Structures are given as structure tokens and as C-alpha cells.
């Protein structure tokens, strides 16, 4: 049989040819990132939809503010795509949650980001909670406590002002206005939850995302899976939870939007096994889609509060 070595040569040649052909084209990959015609605007990348909301509120009209994750996507397991990598590399400022919420994305940000990276949840003003059986792994879902979310917004404001001192005043004004709104929501939420009688004030969700929510609005919180959606609960965990639900007479269990089906199915199973019903869907690690009524932080929190109150009253 004759040796078909020319194949190797053919491949090498064709690859070189492709390289030469396309070498002729120059261009800026940022075409997909920079807006048309604006000079001096910066690229600001936000990881989660909640943080993207902050970015849009503070600087949406002044700079190119982009989010990596889309509504409904789970930051614990999100897998990076090449265009996300481009965004991370080209960003002037990256606003992320931190505390290992963004697993794979966080890793790439650590190694590849060239601009400034701000971890909004990492701050002395935020007292992180551990989960029940954790040593040293803090719960990253801090944004559910409006007090802590205010810290997020403050930090974002500072970062933006540093990046773009010219507009510092604008950021300050917007931040102050927003903080006031957050205070209002916090107060309203507390009142709403208070309408639930004490013995019924217990909510069970798919994963342990609502501890800070419970802390902020004074309601007891339990969950099927731990603080990350990656793990599966052990059989013992589930039995313990079922026993708890029965003992405390929890009226409603809640599934979540962004988590994988398996966890939600477990909620339904526990509901069937006990007398509880599935009280509704909550937004945990993501805002809702545009037009869903929960596409901003404020509307999302309100939606969650309303759902919980309605189911448990």
C-alpha cells in the first residue's frame, strides 16, 4: 500500500492557506462589545442578573454594561462560552458576587481578567452565614438581605466612580435614590411576612439560597440541597427534612426557577409525602426574564415575598 503521507502536507498547507487568507482581515473583536459610535465609554461586565440590574441602574446609559448570565441560568453550574471569555478579557470593570457563587466563571475571571474585578459580597459589612454543616464555606446568597444588597450597590458605586470620575456625582445620586427604594422594600417586606402567623412562618426551598432572606424578613428557612446546586442531598438529609416538615406542620414548599429539575422534583416528592403543598416558584439565583414581572431586583424580591406570604397565610 502506498503511503499516504501527502495527507499531512495537505492539511498543513490548507491550514496555512486559511491563516493567510484571514490574516488579511483585521478587526476588533470588540465590535461585538463596544456600542456604536460612543467614545470613552467603558466596558462593564456583570456576572449574575441581579448584579447586572445594579449595573444598568447606575450606569446603563453611560457605558456598555453587559451581563454574562441570562435570566434562568444557574451561576453554580454555569459553563463558560467563548464570547463570555472575550467579555471577561475586554472588560474595564467586572462586578461579580464572589464567595464561590460563580464557580467556573469565577475561575476564568481570576486568571484572565485584565480590568478591575470587584467582589460585591466580600466586605466587612456583610456578615456571612455558614450553612448548617460547613466549616469555612460561606453562604454566598447575600443579596437576599436588602441591607447587604445595599452594600453591593455602594461598592458598585465606588468602583464606577473610580473608573469614571467624571460621572461620580451621577452615580452617587442614583445610588442614594436606589438605596432609599431598597429601604422601603425592606420595611414593606418585613410587614408582609409579619402577617403570617408565627407557627406557620417556615419555608422549605430546593436549595439553601434563602438564609439571608430569612434573616432579613424574620422567617425560618430550610432546604433540600446545600448552598450549591451541584451537590445532591444525602438520603439522611431528605429524611430529616421530611420529619421536620411533618413535625412543624409546614404548610408550603417552594421550587425555584434556576435550579436543575432534580432538586425541584425532590420538593414535590416531599410535598406528596407530607401534608404540605407546593406553594409556588421562587427566584433564587437569577432574576426573571424581561416581562416576567420579576426582571429587576426590586420586582423579583417583591414577587418572592408575595408568593411566600400568599402560600403560608
Amino acid at each position, binding site marked *: *500500500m*502506498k*503511503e*499516504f*503521507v501527502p*495527507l*499531512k502536507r495537505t*492539511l498543513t498547507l490548507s*491550514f496555512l492557506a486559511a491563516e493567510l487568507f*484571514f*490574516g488579511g*482581515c*483585521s*478587526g*476588533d*473583536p470588540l*465590535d*461585538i462589545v463596544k456600542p456604536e459610535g460612543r467614545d470613552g465609554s467603558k466596558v462593564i461586565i456583570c456576572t449574575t442578573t441581579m448584579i447586572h440590574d445594579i449595573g444598568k441602574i447606575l450606569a446603563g446609559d453611560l457605558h456598555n454594561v453587559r451581563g454574562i448570565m441570562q435570566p434562568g441560568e444557574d451561576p*453554580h453550574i454555569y*459553563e*463558560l*462560552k*467563548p*464570547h463570555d*471569555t*472575550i467579555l471577561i*478579557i475586554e472588560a474595564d470593570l467586572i462586578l461579580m458576587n464572589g464567595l*464561590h457563587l460563580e*464557580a*467556573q466563571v469565577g*475561575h*476564568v475571571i*481570576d*486568571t*484572565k481578567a485584565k480590568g478591575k474585578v470587584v467582589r460585591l459580597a466580600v466586605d466587612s459589612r456583610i456578615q456571612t452565614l455558614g*450553612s448548617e*454543616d*460547613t*466549616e*469555612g*464555606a*460561606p453562604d454566598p446568597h447575600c443579596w437576599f438581605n436588602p441591607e447587604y444588597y445595599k452594600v453591593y450597590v455602594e461598592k458598585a458605586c465606588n468602583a464606577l466612580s473610580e473608573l469614571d470620575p467624571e460621572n461620580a456625582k451621577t452615580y452617587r445620586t442614583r445610588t442614594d435614590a436606589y438605596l432609599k427604594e431598597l429601604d422601603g422594600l425592606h420595611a414593606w417586606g418585613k410587614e408582609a411576612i409579619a402577617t403570617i402567623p408565627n407557627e406557620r412562618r417556615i419555608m422549605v426551598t430546593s436549595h439553601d439560597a434563602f438564609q439571608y432572606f430569612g434573616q432579613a424578613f424574620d422567617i425560618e428557612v430550610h432546604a433540600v440541597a*446545600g*448552598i*450549591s446546586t*451541584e*451537590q445532591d442531598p*444525602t438520603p439522611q438529609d431528605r429524611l430529616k427534612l421530611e420529619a421536620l416538615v411533618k413535625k412543624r406542620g409546614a404548610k408550603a414548599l417552594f421550587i425555584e426557577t434556576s435550579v436543575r429539575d432534580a432538586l425541584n422534583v425532590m420538593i414535590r416528592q416531599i410535598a406528596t409525602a407530607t401534608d404540605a403543598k407546593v406553594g409556588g416558584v421562587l427566584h433564587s439565583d437569577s432574576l426573571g426574564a424581561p416581562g416576567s414581572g420579576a426582571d429587576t431586583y426590586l420586582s423579583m424580591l417583591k414577587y418572592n415575598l408575595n408568593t411566600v406570604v400568599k402560600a403560608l397565610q
Partner: protein
Amino acid sequence: MNFLAELTFKPELWFFPFTHLPEGLWTSVLVGITCGVLGCFVVLRRMALIGDALSHAILPGVVIAFLITNNTGVWGLLLGALLAGLMTAVLINVVSQKSRTKEDSAIGIVFTALFALGLILISNLPRGTHFDLKCFVFGIPDAVTMEEMQLMAAITVLVIGTVVLLYHSFKLVSFDPVAAAAMGIPVMFFHYLLMGMISATVVAGLKTTGVILVVAMVITPASAAYQLTNRFSHMLILSGFFGGFSAILGMILAFVINAPSGPSMVLVATMIFVLSMLLSPSHGYVFEKLRKYRLRRHIDGEDVLKAIYKVEQSGENATGERIGKQAGLPLDYLTKLYGDLLREKLIYLENNITSLTDAGRKRALEMVRSHRLWESYLVDRANLDPDKIHIHAEKLEHAHELADEIDRTLGHPKKDPHGSEIPNAGGKD
């Protein structure tokens, strides 16, 4: 899914990996090359799943190393992974030698057991560290650092250096371990050396570029190379090249269609394999078809010569239509065949009339001789009915190299079963 909407035909994007992600790109290339080279041994020794197995089996090694060193220091965890990899090789060997288990089952048993052990150990760790470890062990090309690239480069140099230096020993040990052992070459040592190199490569590859890439690169490029060459050295080189090339093209593809890098590289490697399947000189579809076609042309060409001869014998002029009718071939095809025959200088054309050259006449006579000899053979030795043999002889006559042997076997017959004279050898009338 907005897949098509995400297709961005922006050629400048194709260079992004080169300019902005060189570590990820070139590390993937290194992984591709190294896995490609080692993959040749894996594929030839039928251990294809060893890559997948190792990527799972190293988990307990990593966890235990973490428990011992109590942090995620790179070298500690890598060492743990490597030791787990070697232990896997030993266990696979033990299970398959000491029990009624074949190699592939042994691989499955050992790696699933170790992986399960790893999962159980992990579930007992503090919840937070769990994903740290996972992120640590399984990387993605986009996140590779300079240090990781240097690590992979070192491994590539070591592996390729070892394979080159020990090339002939590796070749012998892989092909004929019994003879190698008889010649005094330590077969087991080479086996474990190979497994050690595979373990180290898998561990480093997983950490830099992730699971799917490593597992595929150990099998697919080598299998592609296997289709295309008969020489072991060429297979190694070609396989390494396919691995590296898949990485480059795969990363470009990933940026064009906005899909994860690792899987895109695997897709490219697979397409190369499919191409090699089709183009394989010995087994491939393309060359098979080509061979069949060429054979057909050759046979039909000889039939045309015969036809010209017959027409000339009957005293008429060999025009295109007559030949076409005699040979039973359409005119456009006939023209092609004329081209072949002209090139081989078996015919010449004058005023639309075809004539045989001397060489052509000789060949035609060979055909006639062959045909009549085959007929004699079929009647004489195969006991076929003389009325039925023409069709067979029409086919067999093209094996005219055997004519002399038939002549000898039959004792130089002068006439065929139908009474026609059999021409002499040398093609004289």
C-alpha cells in the same frame, strides 16, 4: 435554541484565541499532541477506555492529598492524582491477571470503584471545598495560566523524548511482548512506564483543558492515523499532528459558533477521523470506489481492443459506431476509453477509423488466447457445459497473465471447445 443567531462570521474573531488566549490555545495543542502520541499505544493495545478511566480514578487521589496537605496546593494535589493513576494501572493489571476478567472489564471495575470512593470521600468534606476541588481537577482551556502551560510543555517534552529515545523497544514490546521478554527486554517495566506517562498526561490535561478533551484525544486522533498508514512511526507523527491540529481548529470553531472550547476541539478531531475513514487508502470508501472504477475502465478498455480486432478481422472499418455496437458500450464512454487506449499507445486514429498498433494487436490477441484457453479450462477441468461457458470466459479472459499457466496445465491445446484456433503465446495470429 438561538444557535444560528449566535453564529458570527467575523474572521477577526478567529484570531482572538491566538492573541488573547494563547495559554489556553497552546496548552490544548500540547495536550492534543501528547495524547495523540500516547493514544497510538492505547489504541493498538485495545485500552481505549483507559483515558476515561484515569480521569475518574484520580479523584480519590486528589481528595486524599487534599486531606493530608489540607489545602489546594498545586503540587500536592497533582502528586496525589498521579499516584492514584499509577495505582489504577497496577490494580487493572492485578484484576485482569489474577481472575477471570478481561482487560476492558478490569478497567471498568477499577475506575468505577475508585471514583465512587472519591465521591464518598468528597461528600464527607466541608461543602465549600467540594467545588474548589472539582474546579481544581477539571479545568477549561479558557482558564489556563502560564504556569499550567509550562507544566504541560514540560510533560510533552518528557513524553515525546521518552517515546523517541525508546522507540524501538516500545514498538517491539507493543507488537510482540513474548518475543521481547525472550530477548530479555523488561516488558512490565515498559508497560508501567507507558501507564505512568499516560497518567501524568491525563492529570495535567484534565487540569488545564478538562475531561472531554483529554479522553477524546487519547482515542480519536490515533484511530484516525491508524486508517492512513502502515508504519508505526508515521502513525505516531500523524496522530500527534491530528491532536494538535484539532485543538487549534477546534478553538477557532468554538469562537465562531460560541460553543465551549473543549467539546469543539473534540468535534474537529472526530471530523478528521471521519475524513480519514473515507479516505483510507486500504479500507476507505473513496479509494474503494476509485479502485472499482479504474478496474472497470481497464476491463472495458480491453474489451474495446478485442472489438476492434474482431471488426478488423471481419474486413470492415473500425468506426466508432461499429466498435460501440460490438463492445456493447455507449459512445460517450467509448470516447473516454479511446483516450485511455491512445495514451497507452494501443490504438491510433485516422480519419475517424480506429486501428490497432502492434502493441494493441498483441494485447488483443492475448485476450483472445486467454479467452479460448479459459474456455478449454472450464470445459476440461471444471466440467462446465461448452454452451454456457462464454459468459464466464468473457470475465476470466481479463486475467490474461494466467494464460501461460493454463496452457501448461492443459498441455498446450490447439483448439478451444468451439473449434476455434488458440493463438500462440507472443500474440501472433
